[in-house]
């Protein structure tokens, strides 16, 4: 920048002498010698500051000499302020973006990362350069295609909010993923804001709480079983004592030659009666292992199902298990012992997971909360396992019947007791394509939105 320019054009006219001035397009003026510009501020009499962008144009004469100078000095205060605002907004946005503790990435329709905040960069441990332009599933999960539990593909079509919990087996961490589309004027998705929050700790606590509660229930049940066994032993010992005593007495009467035929007849009748008594005790066993009467509360079926799904770790049974939840709209109200019904749902989900133990792919559970026939609330748990043989289908709910290698035959029979105690029904059907679906219906109350 030539000093003379500023001296000649600047200081003489500048009411703010000594203040720093900015040149506007000074270089252009240098090259062509046609335009000079000055960008400066003036303080007016009322102490307000205005920004001026002065330009002068030299009109050369035929021999190149300056024939005329034309100058304009527009007031550009408004534009200057707008620029400042835009700059400030951009800084503000970047700071905000980087200060979000969740990992935020902005993706284009093609899953490519166009922005990543500080949390995302530090989580990925990569400079921005290495992140931008790559596909999110590559940088996030190290995969060459979107992972099946990712909510992104779905929302690209529905153009609304989507979220899900994802377990990252590379980092051994749980993430809550939420995705929101950025739409253009035509309503087309041009960007997707992808947020990931590390929820490993809260998952762990949630799971521990849930497990602790289940453990308490299991202990209680075992204690009850212990009491039951003791009382069963007592009940059975009574007729057994009588039978044995009667039989021994008869033998002794025979040995001593003092047996009376009428007495023998009476003894045998007594033995038969005590035997029947023992049989009745055993028959009543099934009704004795009914679930205890818990406290029933009004609950929304969607909430009940969602809570189970959020704590259900099928990965502990089989890796790469995919759980899809389909909730009813509106949610259905049920009057239930929540803990017991959740036990049923967990049991069905565990069975579903175990049925696919030997599969290498398509390990998927679909759990649905939906309206059943006749004002019933229905839960359906489908697997993609091998299905259940037709002759077994009718027997799986019987106590002590199992098709599992290490099964006890208690889970489904207890589930049936629980559902029936709620005035409901449980059954299973093989799917048309592959696997089995277990259903249970519960009486539904009024429907509620949300």
């Amino acid at each position, binding site marked *: 920048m030539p000093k003379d320019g500023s001296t000649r054009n600047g200081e003489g006219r500048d009411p703010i002498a000594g203040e720093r001035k900015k040149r506007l397009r000074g270089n252009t003026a240098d090259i062509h010698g046609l335009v000079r510009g000055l960008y400066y501020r003036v303080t007016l009499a009322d102490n307000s500051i205005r920004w001026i962008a002065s330009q002068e144009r030299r009109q050369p004469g035929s021999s190149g000499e300056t024939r005329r100078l034309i100058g304009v000095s527009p007031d550009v205060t408004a534009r200057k302020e707008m620029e400042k605002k835009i700059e400030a907004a951009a800084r503000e946005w970047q700071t905000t973006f980087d200060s979000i503790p969740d990992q935020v990435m902005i993706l284009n329709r093609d899953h490519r990362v166009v922005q990543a905040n500080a949390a995302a960069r530090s989580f990925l441990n990569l400079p921005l350069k290495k992140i931008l332009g790559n596909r999110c599933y590559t940088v996030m999960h190290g995969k060459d295609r979107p992972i099946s539990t990712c909510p992104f593909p779905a929302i690209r079509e529905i153009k609304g909010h989507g979220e899900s919990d994802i377990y990252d087996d590379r980092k051994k961490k749980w993430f809550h993923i939420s995705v929101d589309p950025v739409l253009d004027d035509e309503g087309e998705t041009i960007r997707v804001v992808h947020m990931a929050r590390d929820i490993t700790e809260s998952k762990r606590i949630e799971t521990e709480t849930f497990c602790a509660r289940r453990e308490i229930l299991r202990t209680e049940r075992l204690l009850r079983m212990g009491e039951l066994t*003791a*009382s069963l*032993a*007592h*009940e059975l*010992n*009574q*007729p*057994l*004592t*009588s*039978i*044995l*005593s*009667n039989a*021994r*007495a*008869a033998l*002794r*009467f025979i040995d*001593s030659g003092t047996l009376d035929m009428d007495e023998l007849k009476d*003894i045998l009748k*007594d033995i038969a*009666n*005590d035997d029947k*008594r023992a049989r009745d005790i055993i028959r009543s066993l099934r009704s004795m292992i009914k679930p205890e009467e818990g406290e029933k509360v009004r609950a929304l079926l969607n909430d009940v199902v969602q809570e189970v799904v959020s704590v259900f770790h099928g990965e502990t049974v089989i890796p790469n298990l995919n759980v899809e939840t389909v909730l009813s709209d509106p949610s259905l109200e049920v009057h239930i012992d929540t803990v017991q019904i959740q036990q049923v749902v967990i049991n069905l989900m565990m069975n579903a997971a175990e049925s696919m133990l030997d599969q290498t792919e398509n390990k998927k559970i679909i759990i649905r909360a939906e309206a059943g026939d006749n004002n019933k609330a229905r839960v359906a748990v489908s697997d993609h396992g091998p299905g259940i043989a037709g002759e077994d289908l009718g027997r799986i709910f019987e106590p002590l019947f199992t098709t599992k290698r290490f099964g006890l035959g208690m889970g489904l029979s207890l589930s049936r007791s629980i559902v029936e105690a709620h005035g409901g029904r449980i059954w299973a059907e093989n799917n048309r394509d592959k696997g089995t679906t277990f259903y249970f219906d519960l009486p539904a109350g009024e429907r509620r939105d949300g």
Partner: protein
Amino acid sequence: MAEEKPTVFIIDDDPSIRKSLLRLLRSFGFEAETFDSAEEYLERERYQGTGCIVLDVRMPGIDGLALQNELNKADYTMPVIFVTAHGNIPMSVEAMKKGAVDFLPKPFDDNEFLQAVNRAVETDRTAKIRFAGTREILRRIQRLTPREQEVLRYVVSGMPNKQIAFRLGIAEKTVKAHRGRIMKKLEIDSLPELTRLAEKAGIQPL
């Protein structure tokens, strides 16, 4: 005492148990009576002969252990065989401490039961004989005058006549006379016999 058949008293709230045990005891050669509760047994007139009680631990109303307490308090002791369909160790320990001779978990076989009943009856017989002997001695001691009973206590303490006379402020000759009448009334001849008898009667040396 007359040699009569020992009687076994069965107390159990389960009719089928009562009937079958009654039968089994008869096949062993015992007399037996059945009661459906502790209360019913307590109403029966006091049995003086030899026998034992077969008692169910868990019964409505007064249960087995409580009945055992009642009988001990009333000095109406008879060996008790506890039978139970759900016995545990603390329960059996408690019962044994209170004088139960056996604790049989149901179901038990005939020989086990027979042995237990035999043991109980034998215990009862010995106790009753011992008790009968003591009763006879007490009867004899009651023949003694208060003065003679006093002298008896000094004698069993091993005190010589002279000292006894001094203590009681009477003549030595009088003490000798008392001693002679004591031996006669108690139907014995020697000092060691006298000491043994006094011990059986529970007379403490001074």
